[in-house]
């Protein structure tokens, strides 16, 4: 560690400790500051992790896991109004097992109603995840994966977005305040026809869906999700370098497309550069890919031809 890096880290540590004495809300700010300082000093992945901690801490002060869940349900229902789902039991189970393994050593393995991965029946290269733990992955995106580790990169990236609460940050603060005031201590019933609340919630869901489907997350959020995904992969025993190969394959299939993933994400080249930067700082697990080859081939058999079980 260079003297410069040590001084920067020590300064950030002093900020964090001072903030810790003044309460959690200051701590989340301190963590965010510390993350930025750590990033500038060259602690790339550590910086992203600290920033992630601040994000989770801050949102956790305002939104309960139950709230996250119900928002996520409505976001998923909105997205699913535009896509069919694949009924491929074998592949679905496989994706959900990969998800469970990735979550096992993560910081937030539990959500209010758990995590669930579902395949969307479209050739479009795309994936969505909601704060309710719904991870929707397109058949087109799955078809880009050349290995289980590459598929794990896709799932890990979506898990990261949820754990970093990126979709919730799309909701305008004013809408959240209104929603909480409308429902504090109240017993609601659909029969009351509370259209004002429905309008507020409609706005909240609209904010999230607009970001997911139209605008995409910010570059910074995408890079944070990639960084956290690499850590999730490595902790689970997957080769984090598989994310780079997945991005390269996605780039090769773009063919000038601006739809789906290609519209809402930074370019594959930008992400590859960011991933390469992070890969150098993550300890690599032992290479055990050969143990996963056969089951990967079996799970994806027929997927490009859209054969259901």
């Amino acid at each position, binding site marked *: 560690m260079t003297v410069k890096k040590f001084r920067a880290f020590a300064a950030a540590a002093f900020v964090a400790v001072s903030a810790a004495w003044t309460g959690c809300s200051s701590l989340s700010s301190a963590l965010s500051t510390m993350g930025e300082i750590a990033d500038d000093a060259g602690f790339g992945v550590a910086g992203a992790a600290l920033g992630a901690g601040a994000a989770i801490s801050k949102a956790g002060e305002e939104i309960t896991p139950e709230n996250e869940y119900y928002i996520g349900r409505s976001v998923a229902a909105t997205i699913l109004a535009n896509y069919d789902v694949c009924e491929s039991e074998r592949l679905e189970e496989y994706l959900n097992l990969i998800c469970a*393994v990735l979550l096992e050593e993560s910081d937030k393995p539990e959500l209010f109603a758990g995590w669930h991965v*579902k395949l969307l029946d479209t050739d479009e290269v795309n994936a969505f995840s909601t704060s309710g733990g719904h991870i929707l992955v397109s058949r087109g995106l799955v078809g880009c994966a050349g290995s289980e580790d590459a598929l794990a990169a896709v799932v890990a990236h979506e898990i990261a977005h949820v754990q970093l609460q990126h979709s919730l940050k799309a909701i305008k603060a004013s809408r959240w305040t209104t929603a909480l005031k409308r429902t504090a201590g109240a017993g609601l019933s659909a029969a009351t026809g509370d259209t004002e609340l429905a309008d507020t919630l409609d706005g909240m869901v609209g904010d999230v869906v607009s970001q997911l489907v139209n605008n995409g997350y910010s570059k910074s959020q995408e890079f944070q999700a990639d960084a956290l995904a690499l850590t999730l992969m490595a902790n689970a025993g997957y080769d984090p370098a598989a994310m780079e190969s997945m991005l390269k394959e996605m780039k090769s299939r773009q063919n000038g497309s601006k739809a789906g993933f290609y519209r809402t994400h930074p370019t594959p080249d930008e992400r590859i550069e960011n991933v390469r930067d992070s890969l150098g700082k993550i300890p690599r697990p032992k290479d055990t890919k050969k143990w996963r080859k056969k089951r990967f081939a079996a799970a994806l058999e027929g997927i490009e031809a859209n054969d259901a079980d």
Partner: protein
Amino acid sequence: MKRIFAAAAFAAALTFAAAAAPFKKGQTLYVSVKSAELRDGSGTLGYGAAVVVDEAGEKRSLVHERDRPSVSGWVSNGSLTKKRIVLSGGAMVDTDCDEIVLAGKGFSEEAENAYRAANGDLDFDTVDEIERISVSPKAAREFAEAGRLLIMEDAK
């Protein structure tokens, strides 16, 4: 100057050590997820259930249910909260509001029903179907072992 930096680094180490295990032995916590599975398969804890920490870990804690001490096991720290969860129809509580989470406050099942009534074209049926997808801890362990992935300990 060296002493200042050393002190700052030491303080940071203490802060992170404290942050590593978020809970303490003997602390009362509440289940913040719909259903928290005990890792040894001995049962589940329901939303809002009060538990007492027997052993605090960085990612998981050994707890027992306060009202049913025989229900005990390791559970993910992410499933627990320090704030008491009051379910609708529950007893009155007279503690500081900051320590309470009112289940159903904000975006809840009732709020969703109001939203659904106003947006009939949304596909909640498929969402319900998706939420029925699950893998058992045993299946996940076997999958990890077969793929030479993480070693999943039975309890922790």
